[in-house]
């Protein structure tokens, strides 16, 4: 391949020091990964030390967020982050797994490639563009059609009661669902592809229909890995910032209705960081960031472990 002439690569005999230096440089670069994780955690802790000292663990379940009175609590944001992510998963996991099934088990090769490409392109759309589209296209449509329809038919449930503004928890859930669909679909596809063909053949040999093959031989075999894909999607959903900030309505309330505005850990930081005037306000925002980081790291680590045990060949690289 490379036709490097040997004349200039002949080493000075006995000189091993460049070799050792090179190895250390490379080792340091690799170690940067671990250093960065620790560093990020320590910095956030440092940034939030005043709030941690003042509010203690009560910060996590206090519902008050009043910068004027200097009272800060994380619960509305933890609630908003978890609920919007959960809604996103409820929409994205069934759709993503179904699409992965379609792509691995049914789709003819000819249409498989274009769909995979479209999903990759969807993954490339930046969060802020989804937010822009959310504000001017999705929200008006949800407000005038889907939400009205949901309220008409399911309005007896507390989930679909109350006034419709458009910007809402449900809108955030839907937009995050769109954003995590590519990753859930592509990881699910990897998982389904790792299901041995013997499984399918055995089920067909017993006279199973196509759906029975998928259900008995494929899905049940891949269950753990698909769960891992969902958890990985959750990790992404938790940290989504821009699009959520633009459609969720940014109000620190815990409401039963999905039509009500909410707030998330990431979006309150994005919104209020620049206007945090007092040290304690600032520190409280950093503590929200710390909570988000810890949850995101735990969820991502759990997903990697699950996917690793499924494929048995090291963690799946996530692009």
């Amino acid at each position: 391949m490379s036709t490097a002439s040997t004349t200039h690569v002949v080493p000075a005999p006995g000189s091993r020091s460049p070799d050792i230096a090179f190895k250390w440089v490379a080792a340091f670069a690799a170690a940067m990964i671990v250093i960065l994780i620790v560093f990020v955690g320590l910095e956030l802790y440092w940034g939030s030390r005043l709030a941690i000292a003042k509010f203690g663990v009560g910060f996590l379940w206090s519902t008050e967020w009043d910068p004027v009175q200097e009272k800060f609590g994380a619960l509305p944001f933890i609630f908003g982050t978890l609920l919007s992510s959960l809604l996103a998963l409820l929409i994205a996991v069934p759709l993503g797994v179904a699409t992965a099934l379609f792509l691995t088990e049914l789709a003819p090769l000819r249409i498989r490639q274009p769909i995979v490409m479209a999903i990759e392109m969807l993954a490339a759309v930046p969060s802020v563009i989804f937010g822009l589209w959310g504000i001017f296209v999705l929200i008006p449509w949800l407000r005038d059609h889907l939400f009205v329809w949901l309220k008409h038919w399911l309005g007896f449930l507390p989930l679909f009661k109350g006034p419709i503004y458009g910007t809402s928890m449900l809108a955030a859930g839907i937009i995050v669902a769109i954003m995590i669909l590519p990753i859930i679909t592509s990881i699910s596809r990897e998982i389904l592809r790792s299901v041995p063909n013997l499984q399918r053949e055995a089920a067909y040999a017993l006279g199973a229909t196509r759906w029975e093959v998928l259900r008995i031989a494929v899905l049940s075999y891949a269950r753990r890995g698909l769960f891992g894909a969902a958890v990985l999607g959750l990790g992404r959903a938790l940290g989504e910032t821009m699009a959520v900030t633009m459609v969720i309505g940014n109000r620190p309330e815990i409401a039963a209705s999905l039509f009500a505005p909410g707030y998330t850990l990431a979006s309150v930081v994005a919104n209020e960081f620049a206007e945090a005037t007092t040290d304690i306000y600032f520190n409280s925002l950093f503590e929200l960031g710390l909570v988000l980081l810890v949850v995101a790291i735990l969820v991502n680590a759990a997903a990697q472990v699950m996917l690793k045990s499924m494929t048995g060949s090291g963690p799946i690289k996530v692009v």
Partner: protein
Amino acid sequence: MSASPYLPTAELANWRKFKSHAITGVLVVCALAVIAPLFFVIYFLLARGASSIDWNFFTQLPKPTGEVGGGMANAIVGTVTLLAMAAVVGVPIGIFGGIYLAEYGSDRANGWIRFAADVLNGVPSIVWGMVIYLVLVVPFKTYSAYAGGVALGLMMVPLVMRTTEEVLILVPQSYREAALALGVARWKVIMVIVVRTALKGIATGVIVAMARIAGETAPLLFTALGNNFWNTNLKEPISALPLQIYAYAISPYDDWHRQAWAGALVLMALILALNITVRVLSRDRQRTH
């Protein structure tokens, strides 16, 4: 169904077949639903963005609040500047780290580093912004292009590292052995033989990472901050397309909304161009190997 599970009847068989066909249909609908948002987004980007793109958009600075006209010239240049700075920070660390994983290190330690890289990849982007704010904005008492570039650069590291490792592993072991047998120092074997053989793959990984950070907004909010002027001093705030799109999208002015769509279209085109480059590069790679 009343049929005994042990005695398949024609009725049961038909029901099973029907169910199978019905679910096939459901799967097709799901696949269409997944790709539908892409077409809606692209359609609206073109419908609302294309008509707003004119010469001014690429050559003029943003107008003061509420005034009609102006463009995003500084934001376009800012995005390119930030990407270049991010590459300077993130690419060397990523490539050297990938070299370590592929060429040195014990399996066990490397397994942990890979795991850590995948976890680091999942750190929310806004968190990077907060950390860099503390490290590079607070001490220097100013938002700066440097801070934005570093935030984006560190975000690239895990991805560049993992892709570099993957392509280096694909280089045949015999290349390394042949060079070592000639008495070439190990670091030269790696840099001159292994890395050079895999250069295209490494470049692909770098461009993939650039495409991913090009649209990032959250890490820039409190680092690069954005501004409405030409800025050649990297110690000062710099604008970027995603920042400008965000600021205009949440503003109350119609003309700014129009420009936000135009900016989004340009940003999307930039990201697509990077992705197409990746495709062309990896197609060549498949052909030569």
